[in-house]
C-alpha cells in the first residue's frame, strides 16, 4: 500500500516559494487520509451488517420453512422409539372386581361395495343374498347397477362370512376393519354395562361410543388413549352377579311377577357387588328404546334398581324408629299407643291386623305397625324427618356412576304436611329407587355412616358423615333381626347367616292417580350377618302373587322374602362368608366409654 506523505517535499517547497503556509497542505492531506479511513470502516461495517442481516434472514426463513413443513405434513409415529408405543385398543376393557372381562373389543370387518369396480353385479347380489338372507336382493341389484359409487352392505360381518364374501370373488366388494364392542357374558349385568354403538363411520374405522350405563358414563375415560388400554374396574363380582340373576329370574317366575330387581351392596365401601334388573336384554344386540306408551318400565332397557321410583312401603319404618332412638325420644322398650285407626281429615291410617292398644318400639317394627310408626313420626316432626331423610340421600338422585341414575330424582310430596310426615314414616308418599334404599340400609348397617353407592372398585372403608349414633344403629339392627326371627320375614331365616331385614308391601299407584287393589310392589331390605353386617341386599318384585294357597298372597313376606333368602344362601358362600353360629344378643350389657 502506497502511503501518501503528509508533507510532500515538492509541494512544500513550491508553497514556500509562493509564501503560503505549508501547514495547510499537511492539514489538507491529513483530512483526506481521515476521510479515506472513515469510508473504509463504514464500508466494512455495512458489509458486516449485511452479513448479519443475511444470517438472520436465513435463520428465520429456515424456522419458517420448518414450521410450514410441520404444519402441512401428516403426523407420524416415532418409529425409532426403542421402548415401543403400546398399541392400545380403541376403547378400554371393562372388568369386574377380580379382573374378569365384562366388555372388550373384537376386530371384525365391515362390507361395502364400489359398483363401478364390479364385474358381475347381478351374480354378486345373488351371492350376497345367499350369505346374508336378510338382505334385499332387488335393492342390491338396483344399487349395484345404478349410478351409486359406494354402497354399505353390512356394518359387521364374522370371519366366516368374510371368507364367504371373499369367495364370490368380485373386486367391487371390499372390506373395512371394524372394532366392535363385545360383551362375552351376554345378558349378564346388562343394565350396568349399558351398551355401545358406532358413532362416526368411515371406510377404515368407526368410532365406538357408549350409549347407556357405565359405557356412557365413562365414555371419555374408556376412549382416552392416555389410559393406554387400562381397563375400567367395576365393583361387580361376575359369579355373584350370575348367581343373583339366576335366583332372581327363578323367583320372578315362581312369584308370577312382572319384573324384579335386586341390589347387593357392601355396607362399608358402598360398592355394588351385584345389581340385577329383570327383564333384561343382551347388550351385544341392544333393543331399540320404546317410542310409544307412557310407562317406560315395560321396556327391558329400564333399570328397575336405579331408575324405578317406587313407594317402598314398610321398609321405611326403620328410619323413623332409628331417628326417634337417635334423638333420644324413645328406647327399644318404650311403649307406644297404637290404638287406631288414626283419622286425619278423610284419610285414615290403620294396621294390617289389630295389634292391640299398645306396642313397644321393637314390637312396632316386628309387627310392622303403621299406627306405631306414624305416632313416632308425629313426635319427630316434619322438619327433623326431612333433614334425616335428606342425610340418608332420599332427596337427591344417587351419585351412582351409571348414566341413568342422574335422572332418578325421588318423588317427594309438594307440601310436606303432618299427614305426609306420618305416611312417609311407613313408606307411602315418597318414591325412591331401590338403590336409595340400599344406601340408606347400609347406613343403618355400618354404624350410622352414610355411604354413597358406587360401581367402581374401591380400596378400604369409604364412610361418609355420621348420620345416626352407633347405639341407634345397633338397636335398629337388633330390631330388624327380630323381624326375621319373630316377625313378618320369618322365611328369610338362612341358617348361619343371621339375616336381618324389613319387608315392605306397597300398593302400586295407578298412572292416573289412586292405587290398584291387587297390584303391589313387594320389597325386602335385608342385611347379613346381623351381628356385624357386611352386605345389604334389596329384593324388589313388581306385581308378585304367590298362588300356591287358596287365595293369592301378595305381601312381601310371602313373595320377596323367600327369594331374598334363597339369594343370600347362594351368594353369601360365594362372597367368602362362612356360616357362623350367631352370637347371642346381650341386652343387659350397656356399652360405655370413659
Amino acid at each position, binding site marked *: 500500500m502506497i502511503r501518501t506523505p503528509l508533507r510532500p517535499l515538492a509541494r512544500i517547497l513550491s508553497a514556500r516559494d509562493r509564501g503560503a503556509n505549508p501547514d495547510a497542505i499537511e492539514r489538507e492531506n491529513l483530512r483526506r487520509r481521515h476521510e479515506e479511513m472513515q469510508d473504509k470502516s463504514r464500508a466494512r461495517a455495512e458489509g458486516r451488517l449485511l452479513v448479519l442481516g443475511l444470517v438472520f434472514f436465513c435463520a428465520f426463513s429456515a424456522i419458517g420453512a420448518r414450521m410450514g413443513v410441520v404444519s402441512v405434513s401428516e403426523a407420524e409415529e416415532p418409529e425409532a422409539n426403542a421402548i415401543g408405543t403400546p*398399541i392400545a385398543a380403541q376403547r378400554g376393557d371393562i372388568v369386574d372386581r377380580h379382573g374378569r372381562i365384562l366388555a372388550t373389543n*373384537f*376386530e371384525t370387518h365391515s362390507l361395502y361395495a364400489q359398483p363401478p369396480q364390479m364385474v358381475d353385479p347381478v351374480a354378486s347380489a345373488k351371492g350376497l343374498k345367499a350369505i346374508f338372507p336378510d338382505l334385499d336382493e332387488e335393492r342390491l341389484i338396483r344399487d349395484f347397477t345404478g349410478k351409486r359409487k359406494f354402497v354399505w352392505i353390512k356394518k359387521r360381518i364374522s370371519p366366516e362370512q368374510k371368507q364367504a364374501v371373499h369367495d364370490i370373488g368380485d373386486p367391487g366388494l371390499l372390506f373395512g376393519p371394524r372394532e366392535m364392542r363385545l360383551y362375552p357374558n351376554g345378558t349378564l349385568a346388562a343394565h350396568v354395562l349399558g351398551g355401545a354403538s358406532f358413532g362416526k363411520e368411515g371406510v377404515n374405522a368407526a368410532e365406538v361410543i357408549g350409549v347407556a350405563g357405565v359405557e356412557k358414563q365413562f365414555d371419555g375415560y374408556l376412549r382416552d388413549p392416555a389410559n393406554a388400554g387400562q381397563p375400567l374396574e367395576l365393583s361387580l363380582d361376575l*359369579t355373584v352377579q*350370575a348367581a343373583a340373576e339366576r335366583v332372581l329370574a327363578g323367583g320372578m317366575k315362581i312369584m308370577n311377577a312382572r319384573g324384579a330387581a335386586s341390589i347387593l351392596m357392601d355396607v362399608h365401601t358402598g360398592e355394588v357387588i351385584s345389581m340385577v334388573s329383570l327383564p333384561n336384554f343382551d347388550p351385544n344386540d341392544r333393543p331399540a328404546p320404546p317410542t310409544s306408551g307412557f310407562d317406560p318400565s315395560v321396556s327391558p332397557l329400564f333399570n328397575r334398581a336405579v331408575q324405578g321410583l317406587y313407594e317402598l312401603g314398610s321398609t321405611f319404618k326403620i328410619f323413623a324408629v332409628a331417628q326417634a332412638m337417635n334423638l333420644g325420644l324413645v328406647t327399644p322398650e318404650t311403649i307406644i299407643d297404637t290404638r287406631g285407626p288414626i283419622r286425619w281429615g278423610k284419610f285414615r291410617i290403620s294396621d294390617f291386623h289389630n295389634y292391640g292398644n299398645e306396642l313397644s318400639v321393637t314390637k312396632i317394627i316386628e309387627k310392622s305397625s303403621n299406627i306405631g310408626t306414624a305416632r313416632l313420626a308425629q313426635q319427630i316432626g316434619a322438619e327433623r324427618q326431612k333433614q334425616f331423610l335428606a342425610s340418608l340421600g332420599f332427596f337427591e338422585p344417587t351419585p351412582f356412576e351409571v348414566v341413568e341414575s342422574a335422572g332418578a330424582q325421588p318423588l317427594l310430596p309438594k307440601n310436606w304436611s303432618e299427614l305426609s310426615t306420618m305416611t312417609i314414616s311407613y313408606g307411602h308418599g315418597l318414591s325412591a329407587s331401590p338403590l336409595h334404599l340400599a344406601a340408606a340400609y347400609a347406613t343403618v348397617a355400618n354404624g350410622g355412616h352414610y355411604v354413597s353407592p358406587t360401581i367402581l372398585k374401591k380400596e378400604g372403608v369409604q364412610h361418609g358423615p355420621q348420620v345416626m349414633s352407633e347405639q341407634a344403629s345397633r338397636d335398629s339392627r337388633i330390631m330388624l333381626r327380630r323381624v326375621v326371627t319373630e316377625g313378618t320375614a320369618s322365611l328369610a331365616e338362612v341358617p348361619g347367616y343371621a339375616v336381618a331385614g324389613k319387608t315392605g308391601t306397597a300398593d302400586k299407584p295407578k298412572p292416573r292417580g289412586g292405587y290398584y287393589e291387587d297390584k303391589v310392589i313387594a320389597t325386602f331390605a335385608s342385611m347379613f350377618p346381623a351381628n356385624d353386617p357386611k352386605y345389604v341386599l334389596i329384593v324388589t318384585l313388581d306385581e308378585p302373587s304367590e298362588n300356591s294357597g287358596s287365595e293369592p298372597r301378595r305381601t312381601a313376606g310371602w313373595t320377596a322374602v323367600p327369594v331374598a333368602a334363597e339369594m343370600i344362601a*347362594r351368594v353369601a358362600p360365594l362372597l367368602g362368608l362362612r356360616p357362623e353360629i350367631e352370637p347371642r344378643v346381650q341386652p343387659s350389657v350397656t356399652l360405655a366409654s370413659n
Partner: protein
Amino acid sequence: MRGFIYVLTALAVFGLAFWAYRENYATQQALRETKTLQRQIGDAQAKLAVLRAEWAYLNRPERLMELAEINFDRLGLLPLRPDQFGRVDEVSYPAEPLLPITNPVDISSMSEESDP
C-alpha cells in the same frame, strides 16, 4: 510436511464419509426392523385380545352352568351352599399308628413242641 497433512485430511474425509454411509444404511435397517417388530407386537396384541375375549366367552357363567349340568354324572358339581362348609373338628384325621409290639406274650396254649 504440508502435503502429508493434506493427504491425511483427505483420507480422514474418505474415512468419515464411508462411516457416515454405513451408519446411514445401518440406521435404515434398524428402523425397518423396528417397524416389523412393532407390527408383530401389534398383531400379537390383537391376537391376545381375541384370545382373551374368547376365554371370557367360553368361561361365561351361563355356559359353565350348562356344562356342569351336562357332566353332572361324572363331576357331580352343585352350586356352592352354606351347608357345604365344615368345621375343622369335623374332619376325621387318620388314626394314630399302633405302637410296635416289642415284647410279645405267647398266650396260645399250643406250642411248637405240641404240634403233631
